[in-house]
């Protein structure tokens, strides 16, 4: 396959999730990605496990985020190692880092210094909150960024208090934005022949995720989001029936739709609550409770079949066990197997992007710490 980023060399000085998830995307699109890691410890994510799951000496989490990369061990505080790295940077197309502001300046690998080594480098930086302002030295940690961004008042019900998204959404979106910025920079470099600086932060990324609702807030006189009090409601700004409802044997999700029509189909009387189109907003909470009473009476499948036969947008709510058994899940080939060497294998996801009719599969597992140091020294004559 002719992958778009083939031939490009990326040096990743990042740890944890935001930066490395961007490196993974670039690798799957064809770039060669070398992680630059501290000797003996490496990316701190190597020891950060969930459910105590490890593959050999590294966490499963590390394997998930860092597949399809190489590892070069170097101590940025050791002058010899730093010299070698500068030579390597001279050959690279892209470098990324997520150190706190000031760290790379001290080491002498900030953008201005690196431009002297390689004037055509694309330099990508991830911070928590930008380089200026009172938050610039705060730890760029996902939950904390969610907490200050207002995001926690959008999910769940109003009596819950703040409800964070149950995944590292700021990290992941910031990684996605870094990838976009780096590729735009590569396009700019192809035209102008000069290096480009790309900067993203977790906070700006999580604000971008809220761009629709923030735009509403900025133009409706600063009204804060009004989450429903009814369990299962799914969006502070959308009217009934939008949400998830318990049935006799599970849950059904209802997208936006014509409420009187839906209620006629499921035989739910809302005539006292719904008097005109605006009622779907004004009486949202009561309507959701009323609908919930009806949905409890039948099994999910029965409701989905009935509603879909009328063209209503709905779905059964699935968990990982039922979701991964869908024929569509298999047809989309969401899983791939990685080859970890010594006959060891592990399963994970594939890149979500399909290029020229093909999935961007890659069976190369994550590298052991410093796995490629000797080979890279030799290949780029760094010794």
């Amino acid at each position: 396959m002719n992958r778009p980023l083939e031939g490009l060399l990326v040096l990743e000085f990042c740890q944890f999730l935001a930066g490395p998830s961007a490196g993974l995307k670039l690798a799957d699109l064809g770039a060669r990605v070398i992680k630059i890691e501290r000797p003996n410890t490496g990316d701190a994510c190597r020891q950060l496990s969930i459910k105590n799951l490890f593959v050999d000496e590294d966490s499963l989490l590390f394997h998930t985020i860092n597949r399809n990369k190489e590892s070069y061990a170097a101590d940025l505080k050791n002058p010899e190692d730093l010299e070698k790295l500068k030579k390597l940077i001279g050959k690279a197309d892209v470098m990324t880092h997520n150190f706190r502001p000031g760290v790379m300046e001290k080491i002498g690998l900030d953008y201005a210094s690196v431009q002297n080594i390689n004037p055509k480098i694309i330099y990508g930086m991830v911070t928590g909150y930008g380089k200026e302002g009172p938050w610039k030295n705060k730890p760029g940690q996902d939950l904390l960024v969610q907490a200050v961004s207002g995001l926690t008042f959008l999910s769940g019900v109003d009596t819950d208090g703040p409800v964070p998204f149950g995944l590292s959404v700021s990290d992941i979106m910031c990684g996605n934005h870094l990838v976009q910025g780096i590729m735009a920079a590569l396009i700019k470099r192809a035209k102008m022949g000069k290096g480009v600086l790309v900067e993203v932060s977790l906070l700006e990324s999580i604000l971008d995720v809220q761009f629709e609702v923030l735009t509403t807030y900025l133009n409706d006189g600063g009204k804060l989001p009004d989450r429903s009090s009814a369990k299962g409601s799914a969006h502070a700004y959308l009217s009934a029936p939008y949400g998830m409802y318990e049935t006799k044997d599970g849950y059904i999700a209802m997208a936006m739709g014509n409420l009187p029509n839906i209620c006629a189909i499921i035989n739910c009387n809302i005539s006292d609550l719904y008097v005109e189109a605006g009622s779907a907003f004004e009486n949202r909470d009561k309507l959701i409770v009323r609908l919930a009473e009806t949905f409890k009476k039948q099994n999910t499948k029965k409701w989905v079949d009935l509603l879909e036969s009328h063209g209503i947008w709905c779905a059964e709510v699935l968990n990982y066990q039922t979701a991964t058994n869908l024929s569509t899940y298999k047809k989309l080939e969401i899983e791939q197997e990685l080859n970890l060497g010594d006959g060891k294998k592990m399963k994970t996801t594939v890149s979500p992007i399909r290029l020229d009719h093909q999935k961007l599969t890659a069976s190369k597992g994550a590298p052991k710490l410093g796995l490629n140091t000797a080979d890279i020294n030799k290949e780029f004559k760094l010794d």
Partner: protein
Amino acid sequence: MKPLEDYLVIDFSQFLSGPSASLRLADMGARVIKIERSGVGDICRTLYTSNLIMNGESSVFHAINRNKESFEVDLKNEVDCEMVRELLKKADIMIHNFRPGVMERLGFDYQSVTALNPTIIYGEISGYGTEGEWRNKPGQDLLLQSVTGLTSLTGNANSGPVAMGLSIVDMLAGAHLAQGLLACLYRKAIKNEGGFIQVSMMESAYDFQFETITTFMNDGGELPQRSEKNNANAYLGAPYGIYQTENGYLALAMGSIPQLGDLLGCDKLLAYEAVEEAFDKRDEIKAILASHLSTETTETWLSKLEPADIWCADVLNWNALLDHDGFKVLNMIQEVEMVDGYRYKTTRCPIRIDGELLTSTKGSPKLGQDNDRIVKEFITQKTIANV
């Protein structure tokens, strides 16, 4: 100079997924022309969230479609189709998010378009791919959250399924489409080749969950277990979560339990010395923390924890956030203006290139506002006469 200056994007997509990708390309400097159905336009124009109507259209339409032009056409009319084909001959990128089969019927599928323009980059978003059993199901965000297990990660153990309260899957699919298109645009700049990028919301939803679904694939298929209270990640131990204080809330992301006990003056926490207890006994520990943290103000706790480098933060709503210097210094808000002079505030692109913000003052387009100009610029009279 913005990175994508001089590139032309023809965007047939509606709602959020596709249009969020073209917004990103527009902010990076590309010229984006929305192809909109005559008389109606992008359905998002009338998709109201809350009851807010801005200059006759929905607030979300204005957020998603600023910095773009609108070309109003009837794709059942041959003259209009020929004009769109003329545009596609000159385009670098085309985008659509129709259900599988629609573009084939209209004659704007990948094969037909590459016949017009062999180096075009063609991007499409579907809900569930173009082949499987579910290919014709609506690609709607909440439904995608529901069928990919995503709703079992947020909220507490007894909350039932809890959605993430934004159209997150749409935005992820848009981000992935933009990535694929940009990668191909780079390849085009180097090799002058076109490309075909396909993204589905289902694959994008699993990419978002790549850490947790990979755990599921490798831990014997165990389902995620959210904590009973204060859940912020089903797979992480105490203290990870948000806690009520005397006057607000506190987000707490890490810290060994005995150290927290020490710093917070909570003796009950000192007993949890074994590292694995933070996960195994998280409900118990979180209950102790919750009851202790409710006794003092957020500021008091921050003043004890921050000097010890414990990762923690106040929990802000938008009012408090927008008042904060940490927000103001980002210059995240910009004002844009429509052709009729209507002005509104919105957020800007989150990426900085060469130290500059990618801002633009151009508001969203009125339906068909650019027809005359586009026809004059791109369409020869011969094109129309030939039909």
